[in-house]
């Protein structure tokens, strides 16, 4: 008796979250404002093999554990054709700490070496089905289409980088660069929730 109700509650909650997008799905290129004030579009990188889109935010302590690792990933894979882009899809009206000004300050103090883009209308988070910070997506560009080749966690240990066993994101990128299939293409992201504005 209680069981059905619990499941109903779960369904109800899931219905409120973003649509789900899976590996193999195509996504549309987006254009967002970077912390330097300039607009950044995926179409600005005609020679890119693909993109690493990482949803993150200013306040989440778990997401902030990955700042240095994202710089390293950007340095390693940017020259190889995979451009790292961070996207902040937080509700910047409700959450003062996620405002554009605070993003600019965060990019400066954390020495971000990659674009940090504001998804003010949460359009990108919705179209990717992003729910957590950090949450990574690897996009491969083929015949003008962008398909998701990996989505999920960056790796399997936030606070202890030296104890990481599975470098999910790097493994996916290495395989793509070597023309091999991505073995683990979907993992669960852990981190703070991305709260979507209601669309009533």
């Amino acid at each position, binding site marked *: 008796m209680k069981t*059905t109700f619990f499941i109903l509650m779960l369904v109800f909650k899931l219905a409120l979250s973003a649509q789900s997008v899976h590996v193999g799905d195509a996504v549309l290129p987006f254009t967002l404002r970077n912390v330097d004030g300039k607009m950044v579009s995926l179409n600005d990188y005609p020679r890119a093999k693909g993109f690493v889109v990482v949803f993150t935010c200013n306040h989440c302590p778990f997401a902030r554990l990955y700042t240095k690792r994202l710089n390293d990933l950007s340095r390693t894979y940017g020259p190889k054709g995979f451009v790292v882009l961070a996207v902040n899809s937080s509700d910047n009206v409700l959450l003062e700490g996620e405002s554009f000004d605070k993003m600019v300050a965060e990019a400066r103090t954390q020495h971000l070496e990659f674009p940090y883009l504001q998804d003010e209308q949460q359009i990108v988070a919705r179209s990717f089905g992003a729910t957590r910070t950090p949450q990574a997506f690897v996009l491969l560009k083929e015949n003008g289409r962008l398909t998701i080749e990996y989505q999920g966690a960056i790796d399997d240990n936030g606070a202890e980088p030296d104890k990481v066993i599975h470098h999910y994101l790097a493994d996916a990128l290495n395989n793509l660069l070597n023309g091999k299939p991505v073995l683990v293409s979907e993992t669960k992201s852990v981190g703070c929730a991305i709260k979507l504005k209601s669309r009533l």
Partner: protein
Amino acid sequence: MRLLLLLQLFFMAGYAQNYHTLWIPDTLSGTTFNLSAKDTFQQFLTGNQTVTAAFNGSFWGPTLFWNKGDTVHMNITNLLQDSTTVHWHGMHLPAVMDGGPHQVIPPNTVWQPYWKVENNAATYWYHPHLHMEAVEQITEGLGGLIIIRDSVESALPLPRTYGVDDIPLILSDRSFNASNAFTDVPYGDSMVTNGVLSAQYTLPAQMVRLRVLDAAIERAYNLGMSDGSTFYVISTDGGLVDTPVAVTRFLLSPGERVELVINLTGKSGSLDLKAFNSALNNTIGGGENFSNGPFANALGHKDFAVLHINIGAQTSSPVTSLPAWLTTNTFYNADSANLTRLVTITDSTGVTNPPILGPNAFILDHMLFSMTYNNYTVPYGNTEIWQITNSTNFGHPFHIHDVQFYTLSVNGSAAPAYQQGWKDVILVEANATVKFIAKFTDYSDTLHPYMFHCHIALHEDEGMMGQFIVQDTASAVSTGISTLNANATDFSLFPNPAGDKIFVKQADEGRNIYYARIIDHLGRTCFMLPRPDLRKGFDISSLSNGHYFLQLTDDATKLNITKPFVKEQVK
């Protein structure tokens, strides 16, 4: 056989190495308390950390020490991305300070309730009470203990050195997914004591007080010692019992607290405080033995350790015996009751209003909870008997806000000796009837209600809750809106622009203010101040320069008037 024994020894040794030292929550004392709810993470398992939320950064938050008679001022900052509330569980206080589902704190907002501590020395707690979000926010780790001291308790030779012979024990359980994240479930697979898996602690070989809170979503804990020894109940939810009550088992349900004294005098080695839940039948939370479905869990209907106790040396001045007499409680006499309320617990079969959530919830008084429906109006000063009749096949811990009650009867008989004390939660077992008596005094409010509900957070979220207002009918008539001079609630602000503080000048200095809010130019609430002391002004030193609004709600009429002001800090 020998191999089996060896294997067993191997596993026992391996298990012993997996104990983690019990975390003793930090403490805060004084009369002003700063608590911030924030997202954080914690190492529960090997590998990835678990994302949690917590007050002041730890799961669970700091233990608050209050003295009876003090006025405590709370600065509650919500740094979460979600709204939340902070409920002062067990506290007798104005409804607008209670932290129930109506006192919602939006993100980035500071809520500043205050009240005079009228409760007896005992163990209480604070936790979120946002409607339909209680399971999620309590699971994340938002909550903590409150310890109240008073002159009666302080005069007794009881163990009271926090973390040494006076041990806080917050019991709950959690399940983890493959990425070590919490899953929102009614029952977790792992026992979590004070936010620690497989907890162990060294206690001195003397009388030790355990302040135990059941902070689980649904599980009850049938507490006992692994060596079968007797222990003593000295305090129920809201104060000392008259005399220590010797027991070998104590059933603690969600929301309930109990103070137990265990006697380790003359003992050595180690033993366990255990939950003997294999003795519970399937009508008690944690007694069910589901093998699959959302209620299946590794601890269901099993005995398991709550705390592994290593017995250490005595302290320099150990408590080695308990006083025979603790206090003299004066409970309300059934004859003094003005009325009896009949509260029913049923399932929602046949209930069509509101119809959205279907027929399968447990409910009170044949209806699902509605934020806008007031179940009862309690006349100010009333002494009432509440008779809770459970006609379902499952036990529900019934909790009422504002008051501590005395249990008159359980199924027509006197409550057991260990429940003969002040309570704010009582387990109403399947097909049972409980009668308690309480007095509704000191605080009346026609706008903000108090809640009564099942303290199984899942049931509460599903709508097993009701609300009541305490109304002072005499004063409501004399200050009615018809007598209002329309200009009397007007006010002005000075200085404006303001730096660190802004003050209010009322047209009618005699009017009381029910609520104040400071709102920024985007409509975000920065401060929520129930019943502000206008003489002190408003501390706006933390606000950035810019345009704001101050909204005052008049106490008698509950009308709002809003005035703009400019914050301008010259640097």
